[in-house]
């Protein structure tokens, strides 16, 4: 999986900035996606490209249980969020619907990755290759459970 980085150098990026409450009435995913990250970076929908990755700090996706958050990012084309830690419901929502990969990295790796870097994520060997910088980092392996749900393609396909 290869993509370019959109980096937000901050902790606690909450679900209210990922998709503000007023848009939770929207049923259509494409329309929802036009408001992704509106509370933090209103230009996000115009600059994001299919296959991109978001890189951020601690506690990404804290707050509301709205699955609209990973859905909005995924519909924009985001394939993975790479953060130093995740809020639990966001993490689970991302995996349950197989919307995007929530990938945990350490602080050092987080510092090394820059905005616009091109990365290749290899979840089989828990590696992130920074093509731009010619560096390789390790990512925190998915727990066995999460890995199974991801490889099944979501919670409904898991154990079917």
């Amino acid at each position, binding site marked *: 999986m290869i993509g370019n980085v959109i980096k937000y150098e901050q902790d606690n990026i*909450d679900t*209210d900035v990922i998709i503000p409450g007023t848009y*939770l009435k929207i049923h259509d995913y494409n329309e929802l996606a036009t408001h992704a990250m509106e509370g933090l970076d209103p230009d996000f929908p115009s600059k994001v490209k299919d296959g991109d990755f978001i890189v951020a700090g601690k*506690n990404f996706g*804290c707050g509301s249980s709205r699955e609209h958050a990973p859905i909005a990012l995924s519909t924009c084309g985001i394939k993975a969020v790479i953060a130093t830690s995740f809020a639990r*419901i966001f993490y689970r929502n991302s995996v349950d619907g197989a919307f995007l990969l929530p990938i945990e990295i350490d602080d050092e790796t987080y510092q090394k990755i820059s905005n616009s870097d091109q990365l290749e994520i290899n979840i089989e060997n828990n590696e992130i290759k920074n093509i731009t910088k010619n560096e390789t980092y390790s990512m925190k392996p998915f727990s066995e459970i999460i890995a199974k749900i991801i490889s099944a393609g979501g919670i*409904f396909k898991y154990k079917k």
Partner: protein
Amino acid sequence: MTETLFEKIWNSHIVVEKENEPSLIYIDRHLVHEVTSPQAFDGLRVNHRKVRRPELTVATIDHNVPTTDRSLPMIDETSSTQIKTLEKNCKDFGIKLFGINDPNQGIVHVIGPQLGITLPGSTIVCGDSHTSTQGAFGAFAFGIGTSEVEHTLATQTLWLEKPKTFEILATGKRKNPFAVTSKDIILSIIKKIGTNGGTGHVLEYRGDAISDLSMEQRMTICNMSIEAGSRAGLIAPDEKTFDYINNREYTPKNYDDLVEDWKNNLMSDSNSKFDKRFTIDVEKIEPQVSWGTNPAMVSDVTDKIPTPEEFGQNNEIQIESAKKALAYMDLEPETLITEIPIDRVFIGSCTNARLEDLIDAATIVKGKVINSNVSAMVVPGSQMVKHEAEKLGLDKIFKDANFEWRESGCSMCLGMNPDILKPGERCASTSNRNFEGRQGSGGQTHLVSPVMAAAAAIAGHFVDVRDWS
């Protein structure tokens, strides 16, 4: 082997357990609202599935209902569609709905306990992070996303990784229990353990300072457990819990037998092992006011707004986040909290819109009028709260003070209905999140208790409610 309360509830709900696999956990109660459920019902239809146990599923409409006159047609078409969708889904799938004009309508986490649906020892889910509120009854209650809503509707179970346990021991006695509320206790806890201090854990609040609280105050504590990143909050049930549940509309008929069972089983064994522990002395707690954009950015009312360096303590990212928060909040470091002027006051939300909250706020307001620069509203947590408050004449006290007295719903807590802040408006709010834009794009939220919000409405700025006369 000793077990914590959480482990007892977990173990009694395991359907399937295998090593290195998630456990399949039985869900006793599923609460549903209009925002996180439409795609779940769509999923059931596409796959020709039914709701496994409709009688254990209850729905209400709370997030995007108008809080103004409900006899008028709804202006917002998308909200109206979402509400009609839930009405149709409940009809099609045989689910009990407390609809927009039902006397039991209200915020989902307020009506569950009020109706006797929320029971000790049970597992409760809802597509809403503040489901943790109901942990105050000794239930494992937690928020889920829409995929899990669909899974629960279809199977009455969920695949879950077992959370770890975290004891929050609250000792001592509050010096002024009217002015220093359970909201101040939970904000103080989050200030100390941080917004991700509880990640992966279920918090169990214990100690005399917790037993001392009423059920409604305990709900405020458990409600905000999610703001510390935790999976759920939990308080062992006691006589106050059993009394609260007795004689409610949906209290089980075998209540007496259940109480016996709860008394014997629902507590952490002595010497239980918790994965993490934190102790707080409530005697030292003052009324709290948030100044930043997450619920850990909080100060004592007698304090000043910290400088980013004081707040961040050598952590560059924390220092930057404080700078960004202060810029968004349009506040200068070292400003006295009591010198922050406010434009709006919101007394409402699943955190603080139950009857006791309104009684306490009305005590502050009685005989006074809000500051001419402030507009203020009270949004009761449910129609039942509203009705009971009106029986006590609280509506009159608030209206005489120029507060708006509204219909029940989530309202300005999350800005899904017309109750929103305008850009640059500063609000003293009894809700749970001060995130950027949470109460409306550009709105500036300060989290406080109901008595602090009421006093701020009168004074036009924050005041130490311990000095109120």
